[in-house]
């Protein structure tokens, strides 16, 4: 069994193979095949279509591109408006010929949002790409499971082994190694990553098929790339590797967020384009990386090594303040990647990516990387740095948890609610890492959260799929009856995240709340409990708005009035099956940390069999406080949105409520603040710099140039053309020189 750990490099290798195959073999084939098909279709189009002789070939080409493949049998145009798909190409042509680009674009947009937009089908090669990606992922998942089982009961392995790969660089006594490191923490993380990745890839087959069939193969390639990056990050043995993984993850995320290269329909005018969201995500992450990098450099400069296992030995005797500063800077990276306040702004926008991506990256895995980083360097935070470092972690997490929960309460976009909920839950994890004596509670919540949040996102993806991309919860309602196979697992996950007992979320969240008390930090306790209440409320608000509503079964819990205008269509097996599979850990994963049943997650994750298991939550009276609050939250949501006995605007009618609502709804205006900072800070500086170049430096250079030329033009006039002037200059010059010569010789001394 040890082989699963010793050769753990297999895990990233398999997706790597899939990536290379997809990128360099299958995708080119796919493209070539499509091109051929397109030209075929173009020919067919030519013969069928009855367009006039004089239509330019370019316009024809454009129209053809826009409909992806031939879909034309008849022409039925109503000027500038499209009623049937068949009318589209001709309408476009007309628009192109008559009024140029603008109208064509408008039509194109309109066309893309048309319910009968022909998405086409991925080619056989594209499907192959999907299979290859999934196969690779499945291999990795199986290997990770193998590694997990190899670790069970093997304390030596749990403590970790280094798997050297190769030497990247060496200078004298310092080395930059490319090494893997596997311990229980790694393996848990890997299992989460591979499991969620596998299911998401499986799910994506159907999802992407309808969203962007042309990018099918590319999408799977990027998913594999992401998986590899995440595995490198997880398996890294040193700060160099983790930074490499860190950045690669950022890039994969960038590529995947921006994957849908078109604008989605606006909701309340507030949604950015995917490419803008991708940009924002990457740059915000870079802000965190900036701190992370400096933190790494401080540690490296102090110890001369990047290796996690060596740093503690070499840090002995180093100034604690310096280490504290370094660790806080390292935590900056985590703040960026895990979307904690103040760098949380990218995550809600990242929801513009395809929903499977949101589930995989922006809920379950990548955003957990920050948590993983702190867990990985837990020893440094708690044993080497001053207490301030852990405090910063805990309070950042706590504040963010509450902050995001407040925003989540009032959002109307389904995915945004989930995004803020993710931010909030990540805050919990940091609280756990900040206050607990081990990285157990934080990692435990990471694991459980990964499953139920992935489930929630995939569920929301199912909804979006059913509603052709509609994300506004006001246009939903009662969907549980229409898509029960999606609704049921989502309900389980919603219960889990709300902290309903016996579900995984309950165990992990409650452990963290308990740790804040154990740590004696009342403020954090209040924050976390309050957040638990809010979580239950907003999650069920979302549930009722989406799946339930007045008139549904069980008092509006299941089904109800549908407010949308798109006819929901039931998703296929490839969508609901992963949901069902994810429901399993959503329910049961929590028992790994449930001591009465023998679960001792803490011992496993720390590699220390003697480590005390998490306390049995049902013994601790304080637990019932949070359970009560959770049910209270659910209850209020039920009353407001399920049964609608309390009007939804009950609290926002008064000015204070209205103001708060606006504040929450606008995310505390953080985005606006940042935009202002960028515009009046960075861009102002940039413009000053450019002006400095243009006016000062170039001014000097050009000034010298024109000055010399000017002097030349002036001196030129001295040549008057009169020989007597020349003679005068000659004699005058000679006399002056003679006089000066005499003066210098006689008076110079």
């Amino acid at each position, binding site marked *: 069994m040890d082989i699963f750990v010793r050769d753990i490099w297999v895990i990233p290798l398999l997706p790597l193979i899939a990536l290379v195959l997809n990128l360099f073999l299958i995708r080119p084939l796919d*493209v070539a095949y499509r091109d051929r098909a397109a030209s075929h279709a173009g020919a067919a189009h030519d013969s069928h279509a009855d367009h006039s002789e004089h239509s330019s070939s370019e316009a024809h080409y454009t129209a053809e591109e826009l409909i992806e493949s031939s879909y034309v049998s008849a022409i039925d145009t109503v000027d500038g408006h499209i009623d049937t798909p068949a009318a589209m190409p001709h309408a476009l042509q007309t628009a192109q010929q008559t009024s140029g680009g603008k109208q064509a674009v408008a039509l194109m947009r309109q066309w893309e949002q048309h319910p009968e937009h022909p998405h086409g089908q991925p080619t056989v090669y594209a499907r192959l790409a999907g299979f290859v990606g999934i196969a690779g992922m499945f291999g990795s998942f199986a290997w990770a499971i193998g590694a997990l089982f190899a670790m069970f009961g093997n304390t030596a392995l749990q403590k970790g082994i280094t798997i050297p790969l190769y030497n990247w660089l060496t*200078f004298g006594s310092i080395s930059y190694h490319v090494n893997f490191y596997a311990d229980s923490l790694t393996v848990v993380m890997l299992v989460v990553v591979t499991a969620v990745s596998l299911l998401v890839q499986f799910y994506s087959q159907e999802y992407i098929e309808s969203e962007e069939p042309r990018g099918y193969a590319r999408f799977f390639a990027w998913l594999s790339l992401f998986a590899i990056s995440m595995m490198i990050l997880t398996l890294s043995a040193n700060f160099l590797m983790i930074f490499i993984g860190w950045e690669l993850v950022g890039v994969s995320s960038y590529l995947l967020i921006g994957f849908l290269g078109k604008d989605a329909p606006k909701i309340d005018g507030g949604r950015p384009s995917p490419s803008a969201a991708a940009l924002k995500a990457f740059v915000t992450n870079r802000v965190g990386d900036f701190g992370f*990098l400096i933190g790494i450099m401080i540690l490296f400069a102090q110890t*001369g090594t990047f290796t996690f296992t060596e740093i503690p030995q070499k840090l002995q005797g180093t100034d604690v303040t310096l280490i504290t500063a370094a660790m806080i800077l390292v935590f900056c990276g985590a703040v960026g990647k895990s979307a904690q306040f103040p760098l949380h702004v990218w995550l809600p926008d990242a929801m513009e990516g395809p929903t499977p991506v949101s589930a995989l990256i922006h809920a379950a895995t990548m955003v957990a990387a920050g948590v993983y980083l702190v867990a990985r360097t837990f020893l440094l935070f708690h044993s080497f740095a001053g207490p301030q470092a852990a405090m910063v972690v805990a309070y950042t997490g706590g504040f963010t948890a509450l902050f995001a929960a407040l925003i989540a309460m009032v959002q109307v976009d389904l995915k945004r609610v989930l995004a803020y909920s993710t931010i909030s839950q990540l805050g919990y994890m940091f609280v756990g890492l900040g206050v607990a004596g081990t990285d157990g509670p934080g990692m435990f919540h990471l694991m459980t959260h990964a499953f139920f949040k992935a489930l929630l996102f995939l569920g929301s993806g199912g909804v979006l799929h059913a509603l052709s991309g509609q994300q506004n919860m006001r246009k939903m309602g009662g969907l549980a009856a229409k898509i029960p196979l999606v609704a049921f697992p989502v309900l389980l996950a919603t219960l889990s995240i709300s902290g309903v007992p016996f579900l995984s979320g309950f165990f992990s969240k409650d452990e963290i709340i308990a740790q804040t008390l154990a740590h004696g930090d009342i403020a954090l306790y209040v924050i976390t409990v309050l957040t638990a209440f809010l979580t239950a409320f907003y999650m069920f608000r979302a549930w009722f708005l989406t799946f339930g509503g007045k008139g549904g079964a069980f008092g509006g819990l299941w089904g109800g009035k549908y407010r949308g205008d798109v006819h929901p269509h039931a998703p296929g097996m490839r969508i609901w099956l992963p949901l069902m599979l994810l429901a399993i850990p959503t329910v049961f994963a929590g028992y790994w940390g449930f001591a009465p049943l023998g679960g001792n997650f803490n011992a496993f994750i720390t590699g220390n069999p003697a480590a005390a298991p998490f306390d049995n939550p049902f013994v601790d009276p304080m637990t019932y406080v949070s359970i009560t609050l959770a049910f209270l939250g659910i209850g209020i949501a039920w009353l407001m949105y399920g049964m609608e006995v309390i009007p939804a605007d009950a609290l926002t009618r008064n000015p204070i409520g209205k103001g708060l609502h606006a504040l929450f709804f606008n995310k505390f205006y953080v985005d606006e603040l940042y935009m202002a900072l960028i515009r009046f800070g*960075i861009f102002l500086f*940039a*413009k000053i710099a450019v002006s400095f170049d243009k006016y000062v*430096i170039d001014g000097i250079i050009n000034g010298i140039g024109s000055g010399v030329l000017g002097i030349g033009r002036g001196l030129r006039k001295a040549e008057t053309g009169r020989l007597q002037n020349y003679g005068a200059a000659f004699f005058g010059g000679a006399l002056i020189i003679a006089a000066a010569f005499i003066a210098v010789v006689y008076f110079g001394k």
Partner: protein
Amino acid sequence: MSWLLTILVFLPTVGALAVMAAPRGLSRWLSAVFTGVVFLLSTWLYIGPMISSGGNAAVFGNVSHPYWVDQAPWINVAIGSLQLKIDYHLGADGLSIFMLILNALLTFLAVLGSGNISKRQREYMALLLLLETGVMGVFCAFDLYLFWLFWEIELIPMFLLIAVWGGQRREYAAWKFVIYTVLGSAVMLAGILLLYFNLGSQTGVYSASFNWLATHHVSGNLTVLGLTMSSQLIIFLLIYTAFAIKLPMFPFHTWLPDAHTEAPTAVSVLLAGILLKMGAYGLIRICVDFMPSGAHQFAWPLAILGVINMVYGGLCSLVQSDMKKMIAYSSVSHMGYVILGVAAAVGPGATNPAFKEAALTGAALQMFTHGTITAMLFFSVGVLYDRAHLRDINAFGGLQAKMPRLTWIYSFAVLASLGLPGLSGFVAEYLVYTGSFSTFPILVGVAAFTVIITAGYLLWMLKRSFFGPLNPKWNGITDASILEMTPLITLAVLVLFVGVFPQFMINLLHPSLNNIIQTISGAVTASGR
């Protein structure tokens, strides 16, 4: 004499003459053949020693004992109090080989990538070849006077290339380039003379040969305008001025955006890929190695200027609307890494010389990295420009739909440029950061801000031009052709390879750079600072 270096330097000149003599239709092929042959020969610089030594990287030697040497007496005069000796002394150690191969490769690719040049193609190709001669000479001259002579050869070809084949403001850009460059080389000559005669009078041996200069350093003070400074510092500053202009270092950088923007694609590639490296190479090879204690004294200002370069260039890039100008300013920013790395290598502190070597290696690698990656960026923009005749970032939009190949490779270049791990840019930047930090913690902290700005402007540009909805104006735009993709893919493979296996490059550089580090630490210890 091994003749290989001589052939490498002058074969392009022969090529230029051949191109001028041959019929017009042949010029492109002929120049491709010549640059191709030069490139193949240049790889022997690496392969040859590797074979002969059985793979021992130490064989490349250092500045005092380079592996490749071509030497012949040229000028030697002793009259009155003057002793002047200028040898035709070419040499190549790891650092030189590195740059020579890069130059040969990029020139070759530039010739391949000049398919769009239809105006006066013959002259264009001849000038490219002439340019290659000059740059080759710079990278393997092992006599300071000879170095200076080669340094200026590049001037005229580059001037004409910009002035004839450039864009709208080519005249202004070309002249600015010339003024800056000539000013720099004049000051450098003053520095060289000062070094030569000072060292000569101190040691009694008048020689400008690199192996002499690397082992004997000027000492003592000089009084200039009533200001007494150490001789090394003065000489360093004089010679460095030329390199600072070439690098380019703030505040001598304003020629670059203009030159880059106006130059034709392949010339921009060479400007960024090679000509800027002449400055970096000179800084490492000459300024640091021959005036170690001068460099040491100037380390702080140098580091500050490097950081200014990084941040300032980045900020300027942020607000450019011209794609090439943005890349040009990004060059300014990226070359700041070189300056910072070198400053850290010569700077105070850092008890462990390994850090300094890491920083210096980072700086040297940044030369390669920036050369290849910026070349990719320029080639990509060139492809776009050839079709659209526009470079305004905002004028495009959604090109991804029409140009998937170009988008793919351009994104690759952009990601490499912003330091994506696994690509060579990361290696260099990471080495510079981690190596420099122990010397200049605060400055490096400020410099690290660049990682954010870089990501910002590059990705923002990508977003505006390539992603998002397609601007219908470009409905008819076609994707990059295979010929256009060739240089891009070649470079991409290289960037990826070095990113994953940097040790390959480091082996080549290590003997040279390690020797420099030892020189520095020796000098610093001797001066008691």
